[in-house]
């Protein structure tokens, strides 16, 4: 082994953690909740402290609950309650929407696992 070989081993070993961090990012926790009513601008709010928000849409108020870093539709004036049945959002990138009341919520964080959800 030459000095160059040893140096090569040291440099490659040193780069491994950096490459790991770059390519193997686990989903980071969600930090914020993006709330959008209609086609208006989105509001980005912190996921703490725990609280409830009333967001007004064309049918009335949808109530959003934030608790323990998660968020969900707690109530909504739509008929089918699909938004409420979506349950808690707890991963970065997850989204729920009340289409009739035109309100959507999505969890945001630094390292979303996915760029989009298919369903």
């Amino acid at each position: 082994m030459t000095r160059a070989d040893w140096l090569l081993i040291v440099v490659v070993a040193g780069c491994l953690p950096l490459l790991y961090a770059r390519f193997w990012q686990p989903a980071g926790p969600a930090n914020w909740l993006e709330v959008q009513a209609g086609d208006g601008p989105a509001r980005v709010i912190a996921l703490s402290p725990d609280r409830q928000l009333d967001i007004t849409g064309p049918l009335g108020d949808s109530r959003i609950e934030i608790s323990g870093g998660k968020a969900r539709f707690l109530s909504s004036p739509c008929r089918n309650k699909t938004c409420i049945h979506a349950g808690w959002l707890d991963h970065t990138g997850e989204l729920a929407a009340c289409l009739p009341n035109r309100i959507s919520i999505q969890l945001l964080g630094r390292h979303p696992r996915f760029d989009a959800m298919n369903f």
Partner: protein
Amino acid sequence: MLRGIVSALLVACLLSGCGRPDEPVFRDRFYALGTLIDLSLYGANPEQQLEASEALALTFNTMHTDWHAWEAGRLAQTNTLLAGGRPFRPEADILALLQAANRLSLQSGGLFNPTIGKLIDLWGFHADEITVLTPPDPTAIQELLALAPSAADVVLEDGQLVSRNPAVQYDLGAFAKGYAIDRGIELLQSLGIAHAIINAGGDLRAIGRHGDRPWRIGIRHPRQAGVLASVELSEDESIFTSGDYERFFEASGQRYHHIIDPRTGYPAGQTVSVTVMHRDAATADAAATALFVAGPDEWTEVARRMGIRYVMLIDRDGVVHMNPAMQSRVRFETDTPEVRLSKPLS
């Protein structure tokens, strides 16, 4: 020698990720086609972002109005003309839309049937919010089935369209979203955008990449909260899922969903969801519906006829049916379910 090695390693590190580039993903959302449209752009400059957002929303809103299945619009006018049974000259964009739907319907053996609008209406699914509480009268279903509307009833003669079956009524609910996404991607590409996702209520087409990696897509679990599986898309690919959880009502403890089997007149009963990956979104959209109707026993045959190469079907017992090519691309994010592999599709 030593200097050369060190320089090469430093360059390799910089190129492969020791440096963290900015990840400028621009997102915008709007409502159209009865759902939430989500646009993601990677690497577009601010002018492109603004132009793409505005142009896409305008295009989708126009298509929403034109192609609506039960509100007044150009599709409704076309349905009226077809029901009259007399030849008429359709506008080029409507003709292209209907011809694309007809071609896919014929490929699917009629399992994707865009002409059963009357049946969909009878079930009460021609509404933004489902208000029906009971299934339709079986006699009414049988009467509509006996009329047997199909894409083959609509023919083009000397540039004029005519229906040979007055029961034909187009409902493009299983196709328009995909066709619209394709038009949207063409629009983005015409604006010089190379890396984007258009996601219409969970069905999407992606072009390009997210920087130095492919776009990553999570497939939501059809029966519980969270993600069932994930895939990475190639540089121009769509992923569509049809499920029994999207639009439905429940009566006497039974779920009646919106994917109607054109052969029986009732919601297809063997499938919970079907996920299809294909280059163009219109084909993926129609195929997801056709394969849902085909169910666990017939899906491979229909997929072959439609030229589909990647399918994941979940049956009502929770068993995952896949072809080997799909299995090689899917990564389960939960406990791996029971998987039944089909023979290769191609």
